[in-house]
């Protein structure tokens, strides 16, 4: 396959950063040139293990995800019956936890765990990035930071879904959906922490802010906490659970949050640029892909000659 300019750049950067040897370079180039030009044929014909083939998330990220989703659901489960105290469904939920006074204590305690998870995450990604920069293997395109390319990817993806493109765009380790999702969650978390703290410590916030803002801020926070909570719950329910549980090919669930691994077909379909890096970093993956493609007679002659 002939790589696009972007993909070529990613591949070159990865090989340079990984100090790939000449023999390996040849191997990679050979494999890529022998792959069919149509990427659809690659991800449709590879064999994937449902619990994941390719390493994606470190154990820290998996723990943070676990902490975040457990605290998020518990906070929603305790927060909603506090806010909608008078609703018919709130009463049994509050009773289940020992009354609204206990629900409130649980809510605040779990909030502390959520804040810990947030700090832990910031710590992990900061130290991880510093480590990568110092070792010369940092690539901003491989991070969650939004780029202009994401806008293009979004446009291209919509065109693909509506049948106007043959291929999905070549997306990086984190695609536009994941970036929106990540920053929605990060922003939401921040809003919840700030607004929650303004309920717990209203005097502190009032003394920090200028007089003209103090009241507006408090009111905005009172609106934000329940609104953001409902919005987050809806985003989680409609979108995240759709993406990782309900979407075709992902049903009943992706195991990535436990195993830290992504399936091969998913990586090639939605994170092709990251898959190119995988080919550089994991020699076994090259072998596996080559075998799979060969068995389905999808490798062109050029590579076969390279192999011998």
């Amino acid at each position: 396959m002939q790589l696009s300019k972007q993909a070529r750049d990613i591949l070159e950067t990865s090989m340079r950063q990984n100090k790939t040897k000449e023999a390996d370079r040849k191997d990679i180039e050979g494999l890529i040139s022998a792959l069919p030009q149509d990427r659809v044929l690659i991800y449709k014909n590879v064999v994937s293990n449902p619990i994941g083939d390719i390493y994606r998330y470190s154990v820290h990220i998996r723990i943070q995800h676990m902490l975040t989703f457990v605290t998020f659901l518990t906070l929603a489960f305790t927060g909603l019956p506090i806010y909608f105290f008078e609703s018919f469904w709130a009463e049994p939920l509050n009773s289940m936890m020992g009354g609204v006074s206990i629900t409130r204590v649980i809510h605040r305690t779990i909030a502390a765990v959520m804040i810990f998870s947030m700090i832990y995450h910031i710590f992990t990604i900061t130290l991880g990035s510093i480590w990568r920069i110092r070792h010369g293997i940092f690539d901003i395109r491989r991070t969650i930071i939004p780029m202009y390319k994401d806008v293009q990817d979004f446009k291209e993806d919509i065109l693909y879904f509506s049948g106007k493109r043959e291929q999905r765009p070549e997306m990086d380790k984190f695609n536009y959906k994941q970036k929106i999702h990540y920053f929605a969650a990060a922003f939401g978390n921040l809003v919840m922490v700030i607004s929650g703290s303004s309920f717990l410590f209203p005097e502190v916030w009032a003394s920090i802010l200028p007089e003209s803002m103090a009241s507006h801020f408090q009111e905005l926070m009172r609106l934000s906490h329940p609104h953001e909570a409902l919005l987050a719950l809806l985003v989680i329910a409609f979108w995240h659970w759709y993406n990782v549980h309900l979407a075709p090919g992902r049903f009943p669930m992706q195991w990535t949050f436990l195993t830290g691994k992504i399936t091969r077909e998913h990586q090639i379909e939605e994170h092709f640029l990251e898959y190119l890096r995988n080919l550089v970093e994991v020699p076994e993956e090259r072998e596996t892909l080559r075998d799979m493609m060969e068995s389905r007679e999808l490798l062109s002659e050029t590579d076969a000659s390279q192999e011998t």
Partner: protein
Amino acid sequence: MNIKIIRFLTVLLGMVACGNTAQASFEDDEGCLICHKYPNMARITDDGARRSYYVMPEIFANTVHRNVPCRDCHTYIKELPHKPVDTGVTCNTECHSVKNPATGKPFSHGIIYDAYSKSVHGREKIEDGIENDKPYCITCHTNPLYNPKEEAPPKHVIDRCVLCHEDKKFAEQWYKHTSRRIKEVKRSSVEIVALCSSCHADEKLIDRHVKKAKDDNRTLGKKFPVAVKSYEHSFHGKLTQYGFTKTANCLDCHAEIDNYYKSVHEILPSRDQDSPVHKENRVETCKRCHVYADDNYANLDPHPTSHKDDNIFRYYAEKIYNVIGEIVIVALVGLSLFETIGRRRDGVAWRLLHGSSWRRNSKRGRDRKV
């Protein structure tokens, strides 16, 4: 309920009650019970209200007013049978038969009545028009004057009293007097909110007063029309609904905390400089509970609403939030559906089986090689 049944029950109750008169009656020196002992002593007023004038002696003998002869309050009764009553009992009447043991003067509720008269709620007992909406003493003092628990003072206490105060009746009376005053009679937060709401949440009443103030070109408190609703949505209101007793109820801010029992009778509008919720006094009022409160804190709105007239900032903030929420939901559901259709068209199956999710045949070709 059928009027006959009511009458029957009243008579039955009267008969049962009459059977006990010998045990605990009060001194009827004025002969009021000659007529008022009859359970059927009642009438239906021109307005259709049912009024009973029946006095149950054994019940009255256990009320706080048991030692007050009828005509100390019903001063307008000069002869028997008496003339129709106009105003009835007002609560500032001096009781000539009961002396205040501290001053030796005739006892009266004058002090508290004066305080109430000067408050925003003050009115005469009989008022016309809008003044009639204000509460009179008995609007709030609906607490039972008769306390069944006082009917039989504990024997072990009375036995001890009579060792020195030989008269058992005196000991029992004294027990009733002191035990009632030692007991906490302050209403709970929920009860206070319910009491204030009985008028301040009445929309017709609010409309009447808003209109009248406008006609008179008089300023009304900014929060007057939304007082109860906004309180219910505030933190204080919610916590009170949860049953927390330490959260501020209406009186915790609108009355002085010193000399509580008096100050709740002299509530003033916020524009009055002596009101604890007057602009100048708010910090001190907040500090009663929020010890670190400062000027900024006192500016926080304790009665927040999203009404455009009341708080335009919050009104638009809520609008924007709602629009964002709706857009997000539509966008996410739309994108998810779009994605499902797009990828299904290309041959994806729901589950990853036998190593692939792309087992279906696609209309666009390029299928998985079997």
